[in-house]
């Protein structure tokens, strides 16, 4: 059946668009939505309901649609749960019903309908609980039938853009109120943004048959759009939803840029997400019509009256031939007029005994039959409404007279309007109930925001135009702009008429026994479910919501919630304001994950930080380790090597000759000023005042809880000048820590901090031959041990570049750290490799560095410590100066922290030297403890030591310091236990002759 009207509508009849729905081919026109095109083709069942699998049709013409969800497109670009009423038709579009098996026309799960009495709200809390096993069995089946659309199964071929933006006035909504607001504000020269979620501006004006400035409403919209386009500081965004109103006037917008275009014409970025900071916001978001709640009110062919008007006038579709309009207010008559004008037969069932208002007068004038004081108690039909049962409703709300059947193929319902106050409420304003409108209206604004138009409960075009205008002027002025007086659009005023609140149409049977009277169509929540919830003691509307799932759907209850609250209020014997609303939260309508994620994925997920020598490492076959955001060479793999072979080669090279490590990633903080040493005394546990110029010292940093949180070597470059090294991962934290103490606690200290981490490229040369190599490249430094001893610092020229050289060691070998400006880093590194070639100089990575330092018993903060370790625990109690206070020191003497049997840093030697303990292995006192057993510590670092030809491990062991030589057991992954002996953590060169000599 073709329901397309011969004339009218905002569709381009000259062009035809082909699409498929559930595998069948259909045709439509540009300007159609998927919904209007299917209605035009006479399709009425488009979905199956979530719980009972009842046939469902299209209820609305907008974002409030609860029923008509489809799987849009197929393959990698598929979109689950798209609303037909929002989908602009595009050539080749493919859509499939979700949640229907095998098809919407014939759905096997419809049997759920038959035992629907067994599965009321919350039934699952009452059963399936014989045992965990039983529940897991039932859960499988519950899950299998849950969900709506299907997730894509592959990654997204599309890309998404995000933007920060700022404006003086944001206007949300492009209906009469939004357009007048934008015009008023725009003319003042303010930076204005106007967004509307629909494909074109105009809102209700695209449906209305009224006139503005003497023009048809839609024509006036054109004119307004043209003027807005001509204003340089005004930006208009159609297909753009304001989905969130956050603190400090941050509004988030989603602009849909691609899906409505043929693939070839689509822009690179499918959607754009705006994070908009607006000085002032005008919310002109309109109102959503409410359905009326009666028996079988979910049948296809039952549609919102405003949607009927919209399909007839905007899309030139006649959704039915024999229509009944069921209303409790005047706007329903607009649908009657539209239908009548399009040649359908219409009867109006009006719950009001004396229908008033401009529209009903017009309807009467046209001789449309009106049944005042009557209601539809129940609809009949299988896959589409075929008749409505009509009965008298007296002033007390009692049914009277005898029911009579009206045969029909369309029921247009209007239960009044729910102003779209989502954003106002998200912004923090408390909605206020208004009995006159029987609706919640925006409360006192909580942010720099105002409301205009029908979202304030206004109905007449006239009043909405005026309120929009006033709001635009006020917003511009509040943002500091002069508004020159300009004429308002001329609109005839109309009489809105009265409204008879009607939350649940009475039925001859009790609610629990009547045919289902649906409130939330998407979640199959009926009036009986709300009554059940109340009966069971769920008295807060928030409880009702969570017990019945009302408003939980993808429509967030736009059409159902207010009716549901009305019904709950009646059941509780309370007023609606007493019951209140549930909380409005973002998103106003659903938002693509990918759009929220934006471009920051893959390599761009987080900065990849690399050193000046990075590409050289790559060429040498290095594998990398992520250390914070840095990429550090982990080990350099040579053909045929695995990690262990490579590490063994690298370690031995360092011990026997010389190796190089790229140490550029270590944090470096330049500290200058007369009080520099005082600052260090506070920050580090050890003392600094006496450190000679040109000397280096190792320091431990404690938090105020006394736990080690960073360490490193600091050099005294001059009397008032130090260079601090931090761990790679700790650099930023340490700088912030220092700055905080300096700025907030000790502003009187004369010290300046400058980060120089990125300025210096650092090559660590380690090994007995390191000096020979360096000598070849540097003539202006005396490398004699007397002149340049361990833990001292010199400046000189290396390979022609000014360099800072520190003789410090993290390997236990003679070692020099050569720092040059990063711009010369690679050159100097390569020069060192060349100079070292005769000695078989070997680049080594972090893994080898770890082994070398472990052989020497040096800690790595974050690996051997975990935020619960003090200097004393590490056996470095001597590094806590007795003579001065420092951050965290006081905590060390707390009763528990001072205990002697805390976990302490020790070495472990396995009985079997070939067995390498597992890092994270737990220390236990007997070999096969009864579970649960207490842990006496754990292995923090463990390696096969190439130098010692055996395994070594570092561990934190309860009372370890006093237990040297004792044997402990280690429970490893897979339940295996291994025996080891507690030893000094220094396994190699205990007298440090190699690094000092």
């Amino acid at each position, binding site marked *: 059946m073709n329901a397309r009207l011969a004339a009218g509508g905002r569709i381009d009849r000259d062009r035809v668009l082909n699409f498929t729905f559930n595998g069948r081919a259909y045709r439509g026109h540009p300007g159609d939505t998927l919904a209007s095109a299917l209605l035009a083709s006479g399709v009425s069942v488009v979905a199956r309901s979530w719980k009972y699998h009842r046939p469902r049709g299209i209820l609305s013409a907008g974002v409030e649609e609860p029923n008509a969800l489809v799987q849009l497109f197929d393959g990698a670009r598929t979109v689950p749960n798209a609303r037909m009423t929002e989908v602009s038709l595009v050539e080749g579009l493919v859509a499939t019903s979700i949640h229907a098996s095998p098809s919407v026309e014939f759905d096997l799960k419809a049997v759920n309908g038959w035992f629907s009495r067994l599965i009321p709200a919350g039934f699952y809390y009452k059963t399936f609980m014989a045992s965990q096993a039983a529940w897991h069995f039932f859960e499988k089946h519950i899950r299998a039938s849950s969900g709506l659309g299907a997730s894509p199964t592959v990654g997204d071929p599309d890309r998404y853009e995000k933007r920060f933006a700022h404006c003086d006035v944001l206007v949300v909504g492009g209906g009469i109120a939004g357009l007048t607001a934008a015009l008023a504000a725009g003319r003042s020269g303010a930076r204005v943004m106007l967004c509307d979620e629909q494909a074109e501006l105009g809102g209700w004006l695209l449906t209305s048959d009224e006139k503005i400035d003497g023009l048809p409403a839609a024509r006036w919209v054109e004119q307004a759009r043209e003027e807005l386009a001509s204003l340089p500081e005004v930006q208009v965004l159609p297909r753009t939803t304001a989905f969130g109103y956050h603190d400090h006037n941050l509004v988030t917008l989603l602009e849909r840029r691609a899906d409505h275009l043929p693939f070839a014409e689509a822009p690179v970025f499918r959607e754009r997400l705006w994070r908009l900071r607006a000085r002032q916001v005008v919310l002109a978001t309109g109102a959503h019509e409410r359905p009326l709640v009666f028996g079988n009110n979910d049948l296809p062919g039952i549609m919102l009256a405003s949607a009927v008007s919209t399909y007839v006038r905007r899309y030139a579709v006649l959704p039915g031939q024999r229509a009944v309009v069921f209303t409790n207010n005047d706007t329903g008559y607009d649908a009657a007029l539209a239908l009548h004008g399009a040649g359908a037969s219409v009867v109006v069932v009006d719950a009001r005994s004396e229908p008033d208002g401009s529209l009903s007068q017009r309807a009467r004038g046209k001789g449309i039959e009106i049944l005042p004081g009557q209601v539809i108690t129940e609809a009949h039909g299988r896959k589409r409404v075929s008749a409505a049962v009509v009965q008298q409703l007296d002033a007390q709300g009692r049914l009277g007279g005898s029911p009579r059947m009206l045969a029909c193929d369309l029921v247009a319902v209007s239960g009044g309007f729910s102003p779209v106050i989502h954003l106002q409420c998200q912004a923090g304003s408390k909605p206020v109930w208004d009995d006159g409108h029987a609706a919640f209206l925006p409360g006192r604004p909580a942010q720099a925001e105002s409301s205009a138009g029908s979202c304030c409960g206004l109905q007449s075009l006239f009043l909405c135009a005026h309120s929009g205008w006033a709001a635009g002027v006020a917003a511009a002025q509040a943002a500091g702009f002069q508004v020159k007086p300009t004429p308002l659009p001329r609109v005839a005023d109309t009489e809105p008429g009265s409204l008879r609140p009607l939350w649940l149409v009475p039925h001859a049977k009790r609610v629990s026994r009547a045919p289902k009277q649906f409130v939330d169509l998407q979640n199959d929540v009926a009036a009986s479910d709300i009554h059940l919830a109340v009966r069971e003691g769920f008295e807060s509307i928030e409880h009702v919501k969570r017990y019945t799932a009302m408003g939980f759907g993808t429509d967030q209850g736009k059409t159902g919630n207010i009716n549901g609250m009305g019904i709950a209020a009646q059941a509780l014997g309370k007023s609606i304001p007493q019951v209140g609303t549930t909380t409005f939260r973002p998103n106003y309508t659903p938002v693509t994950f990918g759009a929220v994620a934006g471009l920051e994925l893959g*390599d*761009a997920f987080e*900065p990849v930080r*690399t050193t000046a020598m990075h590409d050289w490492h790559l060429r040498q076959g290095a594998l990398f380790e992520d250390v914070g955001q840095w990429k550090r060479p982990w080990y350099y793999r040579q053909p045929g090597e*695995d990690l262990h072979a490579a590490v063994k080669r690298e370690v031995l090279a360092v011990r026997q000759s010389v190796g190089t490590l790229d140490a550029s990633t270590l944090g470096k903080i330049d500290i200058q000023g007369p009080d520099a040493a005082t600052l260090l005394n506070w920050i580090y546990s050890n003392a600094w005042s006496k450190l000679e110029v040109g000397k280096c010292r190792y320091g431990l940093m404690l938090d105020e809880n006394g736990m080690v949180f960073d360490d490193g070597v600091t050099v005294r470059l001059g009397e008032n000048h130090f260079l601090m090294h931090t761990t790679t991962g700790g650099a930023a934290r340490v700088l912030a820590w220092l700055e905080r103490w300096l700025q907030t606690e000790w502003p009187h200290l004369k010290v300046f901090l400058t980060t120089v*981490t*990125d*300025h210096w490229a650092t090559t660590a040369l380690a090994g007995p031959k390191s000096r020979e190599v360096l000598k070849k490249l540097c003539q202006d430094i005396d490398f004699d041990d007397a002149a340049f001893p361990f833990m001292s610092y010199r400046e000189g020229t290396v390979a022609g570049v000014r360099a800072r050289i520190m003789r410090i060691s993290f390997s236990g070998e003679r070692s020099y750290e050569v720092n040059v400006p990063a711009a010369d880093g690679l050159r100097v590194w390569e020069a060192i490799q060349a100079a070292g070639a005769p000695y078989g100089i070997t680049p080594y990575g972090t893994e080898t560095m770890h082994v070398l330092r472990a052989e020497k018993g040096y800690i790595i903060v974050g690996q051997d410590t975990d935020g619960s370790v003090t200097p004393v625990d590490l056996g470095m109690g001597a590094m806590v100066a007795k003579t001065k206070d420092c951050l965290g020191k006081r905590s060390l003497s707390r009763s528990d922290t001072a205990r002697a049997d805390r976990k302490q840093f020790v070495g472990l030697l396995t009985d079997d030297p070939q067995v390498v303990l597992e890092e994270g292995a737990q220390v236990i006192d007997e070999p096969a403890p009864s579970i649960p057993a207490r842990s006496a510590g754990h292995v923090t670092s463990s390696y096969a030591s190439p130098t010692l030809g055996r395994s070594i491990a570092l561990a934190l062991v309860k009372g370890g310091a006093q237990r040297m030589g004792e044997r402990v057991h280690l429970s490893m992954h897979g339940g295996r236990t291994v025996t080891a002996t507690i030893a000094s953590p220094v396994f190699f060169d205990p007298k440090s002759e190699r690094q000092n000599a």
Partner: protein
Amino acid sequence: MPEVIQRKAETATRRPVASATPVTRSLLAGWREGLSIVNLRGNAEDTAFRQAVESVLDAPLPVKPCTTGEGSAVRVLWAGPDDWFIVGPKGQADALASRLRKALAGQHHAVTDVSSGYTVLHLSGTPARDVLAQGCPLDLHPRAFARGACAGSHFFKAGVWLWQTDDAPEYELLVRRSFTGYVWLMLERATAECGLVTRRFA
């Protein structure tokens, strides 16, 4: 301990490569090699300090937050109430630093050569604002941010110092060396629609 960390091959540090003839409506982006960049710290309230600095730099020392000072040879960026970046031509950092130290001898100050620690990127062309807006929360509308202004902020997840050098508009970004590859990657991604033209600047 896993044997191999990344299945995905590590990528080399991203560097701009000068591209073909500029396309209008594309973003024009480039990098400025080896500029001299010196970090200066000191007490802005102290006239002696200001005079000493200005005499050396032959440029006004910006004490008003988020402004820059233009000199014959150098540009001075406000980076904090006692914190400035001095950006000058290649190879002058040492000279600049030692002259400043000499002039400031006796006063509490800090002069630190950070030339290698930062890269200066240049951005211009019609889309410049929109591209920056993708990752930077600053309001760069001419009414809010114009030539002579500077600000510390972030571009996506990298901290940047940003200043405007021309109304065209034309911006420069001070980026930490180790973040340059990342910022460049984000520029490439952000310009997927408008296009990116790169070149090297003096």
